[in-house]
């Protein structure tokens, strides 16, 4: 099971702070995870429609589209950061 977390407008678009999901074996990378999540609801689809505006952290480390997610415990999905 993986904990999926959403932040900022991704969270608002998806409509939930996070969800605990069993990733299918076919989902092995960040890009594959985003494709799979986008099918879960219209909110997921809207949030993830423009991948250029999406950033991901796998187990609290920033990740790219090819980063493996197999075995990950916590995957966070969010817009580019705007702190500071």
């Amino acid at each position, binding site marked *: 099971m993986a904990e999926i977390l959403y932040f900022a407008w991704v969270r608002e678009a998806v409509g939930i702070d996070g969800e605990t999901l069993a990733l299918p074996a076919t989902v092995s990378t960040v890009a594959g995870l985003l494709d799979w999540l986008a099918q879960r609801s219209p909110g997921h689809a809207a949030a993830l429609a423009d991948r250029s505006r999406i950033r991901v952290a796998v187990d609290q480390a920033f990740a790219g589209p090819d980063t493996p997610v197999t075995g990950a415990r916590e995957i966070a999905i969010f817009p580019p950061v*705007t*702190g500071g």
Partner: protein
Amino acid sequence: MPAIGARLQTDEFDGAAEQAALLAGRRDLGAAVNFTGLVRADDGLVALTLEHYPAMTLGQMQAIADAAAARWPGVVGTIIHRHGRLLPGESIVLVVTAAPHRADAFAAASFLMDWLKTKAPFWKREEFADGTTRWVEARAHDDDAAARW
């Protein structure tokens, strides 16, 4: 204790006290730089809310601090980032550095701000006088600033 420490808090900070703590007992530091980022009331903004990623934020801030400490070995410093709802004129972020010479203190402070802007998991939501809200968009020139290091 790391050469550059990181803190995350909702409360206001005291930049002068943080700088004094860094300088206390030291006679080899010839330069101190103290940067404060503040909420601007642009376009009728009435408040800014900083969301962050609790499990990751402080660790990522400390990693940024450690990266600066590794690049500028003589530098000591403190970075503090606030989260929650902040009003115009309130401070958001503090970066204090001190070093034997000013070039290192300035460079490390600029670097820390550039990296905090682009590598720490914070997101700003703006509230306006007409009741609308807007998530701040990341700016390409912040990425450019971070990429120069």
